[in-house]
């Protein structure tokens, strides 16, 4: 394998790892935020309302950030 080839392969590896880390960070952040919003006293399982709240919370958080992003872009 040529040096340039193996270099770009390694860079691809790093990019993939970075992407994985970004997804992990998003999951971690969303879980924290939605936990605070949705979960009361920890029981033997998440009840239906809590589970639905968490799923909606994650979706609406992402909607909110893209809304904010678009609005900021328009202002520029």
């Amino acid at each position, binding site marked *: *394998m040529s*040096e340039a080839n*193996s*270099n770009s392969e*390694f*860079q691809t*590896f*790093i990019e993939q*790892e*970075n992407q*994985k*880390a970004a*997804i*992990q960070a*998003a*999951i*971690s952040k*969303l*879980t*924290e935020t*939605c*936990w*605070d919003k*949705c*979960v009361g*006293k*920890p*029981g*033997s*399982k*998440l009840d239906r309302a809590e*589970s639905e709240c*968490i*799923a909606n919370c*994650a*979706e609406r958080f*992402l909607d909110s950030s893209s809304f904010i992003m678009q609005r900021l872009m328009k202002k520029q």
Partner: protein
Amino acid sequence: MDLDKETIERISKLSPEERNQVEERVRNEMLRQVFQELVQNISEKCFLKCITKPGSSLTSSEQTCLAKCMDRYLDAMGIVSKTLIERSSRNSS
């Protein structure tokens, strides 16, 4: 994680076996960080929920609460991950 020129040059001189070792170490380091952050988040969130009045030791009901809280936190994380996966497949189709 950004690589400077010097690092890239050094990596290009490694044998395939050595490069695999480097990749393995990067993967392990990433996992270690994810795990550490998880421990930190669960500790913080569950401390806030379960230890309302810190006493001279953890009571058994506090420990029960911490255990449940940790399991529920992992459940919540599972719901978030599933939601993100569904969302990304919805957006790409």
